[in-house]
């Protein structure tokens, strides 16, 4: 242990790799030297100044800023049978994520300084950086706003009532206005739950065939549209739309961006990979909220990922125990795990099939999400940044096996999928936290 610490303090040189750092406009062969938890130097091959005790050969690999996931459910406090901060961050590391933002819909809800602090404590065993998102209203009941200033000071990087959207317009207006005063992003799970009661998938020919009640596109689009209009009313308001899934909602986001309102959004790998037809015959691993949508919606998401409308790929990693998934479809919990398949799906679907440049995909995992929640010194490998690095092989073909996942749960539709693009090493604060075998 001692020797290891010494090694770490002696620095790490990542040699021979191809650096893609969209924030720093780097896309070429570079060596990267990490020292004392920071990027000490980044320079063309063999040109870095300074030395290191440890060298990592990255020949043939892409060296990127550490990936940031804006949307994960680590299930602590209170639901450690699904996931813990330790197991969830281990899965994150295996998926190339060096930072994750965890949602507050735990038990109890993370709506206080105490819980925001608790999540970040070392004894939780997190192996990557954990940035809490705090509840916007007490117990996420949509009535009384939480102490935004206090929560931000304690480390919250945004507020959200994820899973229980803020429907009341006055509450949403107050949330945006007060968060704007301290430059805090408001993250909305956009769903008019008055329209989606008892619904378990997208309203579609598949839902009709299966006899399942369907969620209408309007349930998402109407809330996004309203929120974008509200965000335009307050200078400095920052609206971030979580897991956007419909072409209609993209229209509102585009309108917001054109009007210079601070509107951002994220898209999940499952929404750009699958459609509602994949529910097939009641596959509960294809049950999530927002639900898988139509092929036209998926195509619109891919266009928006390419053209810059979408700011980040976020997994909405939502682990659930077997007894919550292998039950009647309508009773099964919403959500799937996603941390370990995100990069493979992005490269397979977006880069290889849809021809989105690798640099854009890296941006969606790094600089994009870093801007959404203002993670300073992250999402880039510029000199002086945090020494968070993701090294991956964009050409490596591999098969994802859910049973070998680091997550405590294996509720994923991607078990057995052959993917291209695999994480080789994940480095947090200069320390290797994951290496593929």
């Amino acid at each position, binding site marked *: 242990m001692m020797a290891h610490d010494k090694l770490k303090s002696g620095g790490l040189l990542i040699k021979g790799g191809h650096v893609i750092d969209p924030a720093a406009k780097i896309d070429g062969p570079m060596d990267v030297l990490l020292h004392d938890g920071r990027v000490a130097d980044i320079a063309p091959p063999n040109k870095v100044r300074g030395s290191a005790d440890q060298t990592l050969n990255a020949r043939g690999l892409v060296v990127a800023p550490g990936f940031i996931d804006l949307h994960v459910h680590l299930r602590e406090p209170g639901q450690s049978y699904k996931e813990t901060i330790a197991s969830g961050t281990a899965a994150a590391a295996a998926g190339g994520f060096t930072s994750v933002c965890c949602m507050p819909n735990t038990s109890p809800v993370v709506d206080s300084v105490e819980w925001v602090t608790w999540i970040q404590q070392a004894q939780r065993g997190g192996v990557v950086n954990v940035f809490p998102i705090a509840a916007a209203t007490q117990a996420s009941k949509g009535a009384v706003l939480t102490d935004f200033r206090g929560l931000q000071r304690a480390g919250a990087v945004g507020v959200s009532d994820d899973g229980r959207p803020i429907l009341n317009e006055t509450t949403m207006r107050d949330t945006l206005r007060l968060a704007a005063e301290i430059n805090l992003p408001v993250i909305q799970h956009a769903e008019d739950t008055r329209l989606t009661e008892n619904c378990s998938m997208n*309203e579609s020919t598949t839902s009709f*065939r*299966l*006899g399942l*009640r369907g969620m209408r596109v309007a349930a998402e689009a109407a809330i996004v549209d309203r929120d974008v209009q509200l965000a335009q009313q307050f200078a400095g308001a920052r609206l971030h739309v979580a897991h956007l899934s419909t072409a209609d909602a993209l229209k509102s986001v585009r309108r917001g961006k054109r009007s210079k309102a601070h509107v951002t959004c994220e898209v999940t790998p499952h929404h750009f990979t699958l459609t509602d037809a994949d529910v097939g*015959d009641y596959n509960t691993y294809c049950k999530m909220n927002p639900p898988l949508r139509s092929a036209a919606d998926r195509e619109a998401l891919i266009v928006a990922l390419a053209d810059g409308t979408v700011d980040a790929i976020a997994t909405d990693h939502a682990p659930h125990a077997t007894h919550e998934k292998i039950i*009647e*479809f*309508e009773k099964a919990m919403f959500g799937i795990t996603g941390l370990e398949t995100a990069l493979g799906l992005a490269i397979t679907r977006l880069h290889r099939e849809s021809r989105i440049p690798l640099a854009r995909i890296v941006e969606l995992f790094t600089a994009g999400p870093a801007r959404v929640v203002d993670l300073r010194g992250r999402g880039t490998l510029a000199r002086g940044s945090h020494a968070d690095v993701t090294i991956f092989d964009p050409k490596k073909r591999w098969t994802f096996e859910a049973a070998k996942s680091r997550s405590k749960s294996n509720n994923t539709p991607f078990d057995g999928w052959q993917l291209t693009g695999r994480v080789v090493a994940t480095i947090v604060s200069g320390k290797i936290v994951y290496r593929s075998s």
Partner: protein
Amino acid sequence: MTKTARGSLLDIEHLDTKEITGLLQLARRMNPLKPRPLLRGKRVLLLFYEASTRTRSSFEIAAKAMGAMTTLVLSSGSSIEKGESLLDTAYTLQAVGADVMVIRHPSAGAPLLMARHLKIPVINAGDGMHEHPSQALLDAYTILRHKKKLPGLQVAIVGDIYHSRVARSAIHLLSKFGARITLCGPPELLPEMATCLAPNLHITRTAEEAVRGADVVMVLRVQKERLAGLKIRLQDYIARYQMTTARIKLAKRDAMVMHPGPIIRGLEITWEVADCAQSAIVEEVANGVPVRMAILARALGKAR
């Protein structure tokens, strides 16, 4: 799809016309009044999570007419009330020695889930809004007692189609055999996307248009228990869609009036139409027995 036991009957959608024809032929050889001990010593488990009169009693009588033992488990008064899951209930009933499981459940897909995990065949006796395959089979059986063949037959299905598992199964079955189907109901109870279920489905919003020239008029109940907050003005519904003598007159002279039951007289159908000479409503119930005998015999490998 994970494999399910041979002999299971989970839906009509995945059944081919050969299997359907085979079941209907077998049903024709079944006579509830002349018991055949085809299933002597077999145990038929009836697992009902939802209310039922017709389906439950006719499965039970069908099983007994072939010498099988039946055990009825209801969600109330069983460990289901204590929170036992569907699969654990299924494993338990398989372990006590059930040879076949007949299940009715309010959740769509529940029989399939069960069949994927059990070694014994599972028969779907109605799952949520999804399917009710034995009802579609007995309806086809009933139609074929009066009409020569299904291809080209003009069928009007009028009423609450969105919430109806009977409608989904009937549409799959009749369209597989080339019947010409017209669906009729208000948009809340019959969304446009209903036409995706099968090729060549037509939708109309006027009962007269649906019924005109029909060989078969199938009337469906407004499923108040599944409306989930949906507001239907019953007076409007009655005015536009109730099956009345005047409307039935628009159909062919020898048209059959069918209804899977339970019927609500005065709502979707008048007293007169329910009991008219063309009504096959009671006959449908009676035909449920031989059809379910055939389903059980097939499930237990006695389809000879």
